[in-house]
């Protein structure tokens, strides 16, 4: 925020204050009409018509505004849920296109939060973010996010998330985990004896 921004906001307050006091100038005579008059005015007109005191708060059936309140609360909660869903969907916007040749590696104990443009090998570490290419998970790796392709190598893997098409899943191992969505293929294997290639490039094993 540059220096002029707070000044602009301060001017905003100044304008609002001026508007409020203009309203007040209008409000005071209006208020006088309902009895807020001076004693001298009162003496000059000793018996003005007494305005009828009427309080809808006390007269109306209390269950009606209560029911309206409950309905409004339900609508508010629905709107909040809808907003949360929209926010969640917006967070899963398509990741950046693949353009990076280098394969990134998340090492043991490392936690990385953020997107990976390209392929990544998560070797015992944690990646929280989206991967535009292939994510290879080995050695108790954790991946939270979305990837185009996921290859999981190891004994214990689970799938927690949405996979669009069942034929994209190739499960070999007993238990594997994907945390999030997989757009393309998911391969889960206890071990991979050969190599994993993506677009002709070797991703696994690492050199």
């Amino acid at each position, binding site marked *: *925020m540059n220096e002029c921004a*707070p*000044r602009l*906001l*301060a001017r*905003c*307050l*100044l304008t*609002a*204050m001026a508007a*409020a006091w203009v*309203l007040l100038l209008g*409000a005071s005579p*209006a*208020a006088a009409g*309902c*009895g*807020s*008059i*001076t*004693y001298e005015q*009162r*003496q000059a007109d*000793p018996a003005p018509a007494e*305005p009828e005191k009427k*309080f*809808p*708060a*006390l007269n*109306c059936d*209390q*269950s*009606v*505004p*209560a029911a*309206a*309140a409950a309905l*409004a609360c339900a609508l508010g909660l629905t709107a*909040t849920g809808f907003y*949360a869903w929209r*926010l*969640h969907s*917006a*967070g899963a916007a398509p990741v950046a296109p693949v353009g990076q040749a280098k394969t990134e590696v998340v090492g043991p104990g*490392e*936690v*990385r*939060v*953020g*997107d*990976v443009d390209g392929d990544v090998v998560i070797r015992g*570490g944690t990646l*929280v*973010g989206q991967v535009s290419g292939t994510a290879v998970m080995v050695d*108790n790796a*954790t991946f*939270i996010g979305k990837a185009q392709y996921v290859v999981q190598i190891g004994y214990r893997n689970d799938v927690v*998330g949405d996979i669009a098409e069942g034929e994209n899943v190739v499960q070999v191992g007993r238990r594997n985990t994907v*945390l*999030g969505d997989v757009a393309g293929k998911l391969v889960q294997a206890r071990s991979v004896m050969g190599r994993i290639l993506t677009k002709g490039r070797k991703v696994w094993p690492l050199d």
Partner: protein
Amino acid sequence: MTEDPRLLPACRRQRAALLVLVSLHMVVALTMVISLVRPRQVDMTALDIPGLEELVTLAGLYVHWPYPPGWALLAVLSAVAWGHLRYAKRRQVPADRRAVLARRYRRALLAVLLAVPALKSPLIVDLIMWPGAWATAFLVCVPTTVYALGLVHCAQRFRRMPVPLLLGGAGWGAIVAGGFGATMNEWWSDFSLLHFPLPDNVLDVTYLKNIGLPMISGFFEELGKGAGVAILFLLYRRHVDSVVSGIVLGAAVGLGFNFGESLTYMAYFDGASAGFHFWGRQVAGLMAAHTAFTAVVGAGFGIARQLHSRSQQVTTIALGFCVAAGAHFCNNSMLDYVGKESHKWFTVNDTVHALVLTPAQFLLFQGPLVVLYVLLLRRGLRSQEGGLRVALANLPDAARAAITEPEAAVLLSPARRFRLKVDALRAAGSPRHGIAAYRRLARLHAAQLDLATDHWHRLRGEADPLAPDEATSRARVQAVRAALAGAGP
């Protein structure tokens, strides 16, 4: 050499916050003095109403009842504390033990200072008079108020102030500001009755009272709430760092005040008009009225935090207060006027009046303030995003390990952060682990945003001297990251 422990806090900001609190008591003391020294314009004995003078005197005492005993207690406690500390010094008690002693006395004095206005809170009287209706109103109002607090908390799309600070603000609004506002309103009601010559018609005194009540309540209720904002701003200035956090803090104080006021109105006459007041105060006007008024007060503090000139800061805070007090006065006057006069213009049934006309009046008289604070919030969020973008792009090399480039992109997108947290929540085997994962990831984001925001303020030359330095913030990020790695999904 260790400084000699004193009763007053050593920190300048804490002393200033204490001064604000004491000032509220001084305002009350001033009203007491005014009431005591005013000339009696009505000769009670001439009215020949038995027991009227005693009744008026009793009513006058009721207005300020907790204050004189509270001030006496403060005086005694201060004298005891001063004497005890002097005695301890003479007996050569180690300085650290004397510091603990001073701190305990300070807390006790502070508790009395806060408790005295709180005792005047209408909530206490309502609880005694209508316990059943009060308890029901409490249970019904808590969810809506908590929801609104959550809403204003989530309005901070980037750095968020700690939840306890938000709750502290709401507590101040409900109890201390509520008690102070009630004192001043009651004082005016009492004072105005006898300030003017009594008209022929005794019932006309209510008109005289009503002349000033909208103004008095508008000014002093905002003063009470604004004092809470000022105190929290002084004590936690690091967290109130822009117009966004200022609005959120002010709105929290206002929501607390609205909560207390809702309970009062809903409990009246054993809940005779509870449905209407719940609808009006906790649903239709939840984010307007007190929330909007005090949000603008908070906005003034938030803007002032980023200004460099002292005169501009003071002017901005004063402007924020004037806007809120003026709008509050205007709202009270106009609602009163429309409520009493509208039956002359048209006739509608009471249900339509409650469901349609009441929200329409809120829209008309409180809507402009809501629009104002929403626009200020929107502008503030945009400025914050722009500032964070610059700060993240200009992070020093040492901080790059704490916030990598991909992480910076995630930090700047609230949707991405939310999505990742939900993914972490779903990924866990059980809800307990899911919530833990969600919270751990949220902590990491919060620590990184703290680091980035502090860097932004440093770039602007407005860093809070009491904020942790960059190395400490970096270490915090790494610690949270290590905890996240160690815990697993």
